[in-house]
């Protein structure tokens, strides 16, 4: 662990914290443009966060300490998640603490706390949302794990740094299994980030909302933390996708210059990715909630086939 890797780690966290709302704003802007609406400001998420932090907090009479701790825990989980996903550099001091499996566990931990907190007050919506969110979770988590496994079968490692380094710094090789993994990952991240075919981040319609109904009871700073955590999650997923499927440009932090170069590249990739996400959301229609298991089962099984293909196409003994 040297100074440079420490710097990269700090930069990683700060960048995630600061850029995450911007990414959300960017996606919202593109969505508005594509739907012929007047776009909100790019910085709207920051204004919203600021406003929410200022407001007076109202908590239900019967709310337990769990309810009040959950926003902080969920936020903490998301910060740690973005700290261990390689965004600028693969040489991160925190990375050995959690590999791909632990990362999925981290997302699960956040989800469980969010669901428990939603059930705490005991209103109709909270439990409904918790049930739906866990429904998405129990299919999306294994699918995400399978996507990560497809990548880790290539480099025979579950450590994210090693996977990304292996993908980014080898001679050009095409991995057919990653095509499957890529499609599966797209489906999973749409579901996990409450995006359109599965959930609509802008709706408050009882019959369809998932993520919004979980946090319906929350207000002021708690809500702000949840909103921030949601955008951090989107950021983390985007960075994970970029690191797995478009890893070029992520430095291994041997030289500070590369680190500097990685930043604009990352911003560029994120901008393109955000616009594509908005495009995808505009093109597709929200599906019924009972179709969601089908949607996620498709992702899960595609990722499994991806792993099968890795095993088929790599000759014996050469799996390295």
């Amino acid at each position, binding site marked *: 662990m040297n100074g440079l890797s420490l710097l990269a780690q700090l930069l990683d966290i700060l960048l995630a914290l600061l850029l995450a709302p911007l990414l959300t704003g960017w996606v919202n802007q593109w969505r508005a443009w594509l739907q012929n609406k007047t776009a909100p400001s790019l910085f709207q998420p920051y204004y919203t966060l600021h406003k929410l932090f200022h407001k007076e907090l109202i908590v239900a009479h019967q709310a337990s300490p769990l309810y009040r701790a959950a926003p902080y825990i969920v936020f903490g989980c998301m910060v740690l998640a973005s700290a261990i996903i390689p965004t600028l550099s693969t040489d991160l001091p925190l990375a050995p603490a959690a590999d791909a499996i632990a990362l999925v566990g981290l997302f699960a931990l956040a989800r469980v706390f969010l669901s428990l907190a939603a059930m705490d007050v005991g209103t109709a919506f909270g439990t409904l949302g918790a049930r739906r969110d866990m429904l998405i979770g129990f299919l999306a988590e294994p699918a995400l794990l399978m996507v990560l496994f497809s990548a880790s079968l290539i480099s025979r490692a579950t450590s994210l740094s090693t996977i990304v380094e292996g993908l980014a710094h080898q001679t050009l090789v095409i991995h057919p299994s990653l095509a499957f993994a890529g499609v599966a990952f797209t489906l999973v991240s749409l579901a996990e980030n409450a995006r359109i075919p599965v959930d609509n981040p802008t709706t408050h319609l009882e019959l369809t909302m998932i993520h919004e109904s979980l946090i319906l009871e929350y207000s002021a700073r708690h809500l702000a933390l949840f909103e921030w955590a949601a955008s951090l999650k989107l950021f983390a997923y985007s960075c994970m996708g970029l690191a797995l499927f478009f890893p070029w440009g992520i430095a291994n932090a041997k030289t500070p210059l590369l680190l500097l170069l990685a930043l604009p590249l990352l911003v560029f990739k994120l901008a393109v990715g955000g616009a594509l996400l908005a495009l995808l959301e505009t093109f597709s229609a929200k599906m019924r909630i009972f179709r969601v298991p089908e949607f996620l*089962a498709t992702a899960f099984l*595609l990722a499994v086939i991806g792993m*099968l293909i890795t095993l*088929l196409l790599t000759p014996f003994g050469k799996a390295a």
Partner: protein
Amino acid sequence: MSALIAQFINLLAALLLMLSFAMLAQRRILTLIHLFTLQGITLVLSTTVVGYVTSQPHLYYSALLTLLLKVLLIPALLYRVIDRLRVRREVETLINIPTIMLLGILLVMLAFYLAQPLSQMSSSVARGTLGIALACVLLSFMTMITRSKALPQVIAFLSMENGLFFAATSATYGMPMVVELGIALDVLVGILILGVFLFHIREQFDSLDMSNLEQLRDE
């Protein structure tokens, strides 16, 4: 360089499999046709690349033939058919989709298992692809079995032929030109006959539900 091209063919094979899988899981006829067209494009690409690697010019012709037939002509015909028959709606499958896909995975495993010794004997550039081609054929078969309407069954049948064609090009560098032309013609004639057949079914039963055919048996 040739290693990279082999990987590219593998990638195309994987795409073909993915498209077959998507067809298996798809409810809408229109999307099925889109997927079929995409499969055709993948096939054209892979045939061209194999032709380039092995420098066999006849593969170029067969790629061209595929392009004309499977990317342009047949999809156009299918569009006309669904326009005339007005069957753009979703089609319910006989078993629910996750179960179908689970069975699909088992089929893929079976195909890979069966193709393992074959592809180890083969010396062509893309030896692993044989299993994938076999899997495509089995998946298309599965699609045919699980649909109740006639049109998806026809499309699945065509996609099965795609799988066979891919197996031929990737494993043995294509069939003799005469055979290929013959097959192409067969497919064309086949789809025309099926089209006529479909119209007749609809005239007879006012629907394309194949379960109506059960009424035809002897009591």
